[in-house]
């Protein structure tokens, strides 16, 4: 049986990241989260000249709620609310390492980045770790 020590992040993660532009209104990010049923969106900032690496951060639904609890969300942008640098991990790490990083940063999601390019390639969540504990990383009522 696969365990959290023998399952890699790459095996358990959700491939692909949902992204938005740094200037996107926060209300639009909220819609993306609700539509896609995801708890975090990666915020991209393309390099202005085409040179140098792109910059990115993460907005979670808890970040959004913190803004909504206190003030008008209307004027806020994704970039203004993103956490950067975002907690990240590479696909070759174990799920135990992912669990340690989540506990350390008190976050439910880690961005999975390519080992060499550090470009985001997926997201791994606490729920993915819980699923791995059942011995069936892909357990899903829909399958």
């Amino acid at each position: 049986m696969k365990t959290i020590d023998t399952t890699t992040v790459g095996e358990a993660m959700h491939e692909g990241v949902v992204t938005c532009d740094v200037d996107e209104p926060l209300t639009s990010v909220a819609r993306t989260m609700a539509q896609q049923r995801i708890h975090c969106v990666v915020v991209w900032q393309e390099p202005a000249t085409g040179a140098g690496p792109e910059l990115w951060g993460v907005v979670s639904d808890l970040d959004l709620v913190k803004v909504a609890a206190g003030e008008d969300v209307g004027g806020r942008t994704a970039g203004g609310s993103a956490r950067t640098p975002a907690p990240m991990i590479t696909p070759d790490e174990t799920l135990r390492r992912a669990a340690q990083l989540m506990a350390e940063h008190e976050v439910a999601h880690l961005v999975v980045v390519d080992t060499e390019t550090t470009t985001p390639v997926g997201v791994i969540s606490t729920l993915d770790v819980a699923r791995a504990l059942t011995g069936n990383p892909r357990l899903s009522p829909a399958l």
Partner: protein
Amino acid sequence: MDAELLDHLTAGEAMHAGIVTCDVHAPLSAVARMMAGHHIHCVVVRNDAASWSETPGAGLWGVVSDLDLVRLVAADGVIGRTAGESAATPALTVRDRDSLREAAGVMSDNEITHLVVVNHAARPIGVLSTLDVARAVAELADGSPVVSAGRTGREER
């Protein structure tokens, strides 16, 4: 968006009705299966020894989140542990009539993503998540409903 709109929507209107529960003595491995099987981030822990009818709210022991579970994985593992040992107690609740802004404040102050919604008799009737608040923010901003991807599409994560 009119900031005051969040004051007029209630937790009861925005929540997901129904709760998934387990007994205080349930093994954490069973809780993990419930989370994975139902695609949920929190399980409400019941104390079956306490009667709902005699003492309102007495049976609501606490809540185990997937982050609680992961913290244990990172520390010393989940084998042999029960839901009751690992639950956050008391469970953080909001009334179904409380405004969404109040609920958002509780989430924000406590850094938690799920609240148990209780009715006038202190009985848990549903769960309100940060994603439910995000949905309300989007709908209030645009004045149009959010159509979510189906469960067979992208999984909640």
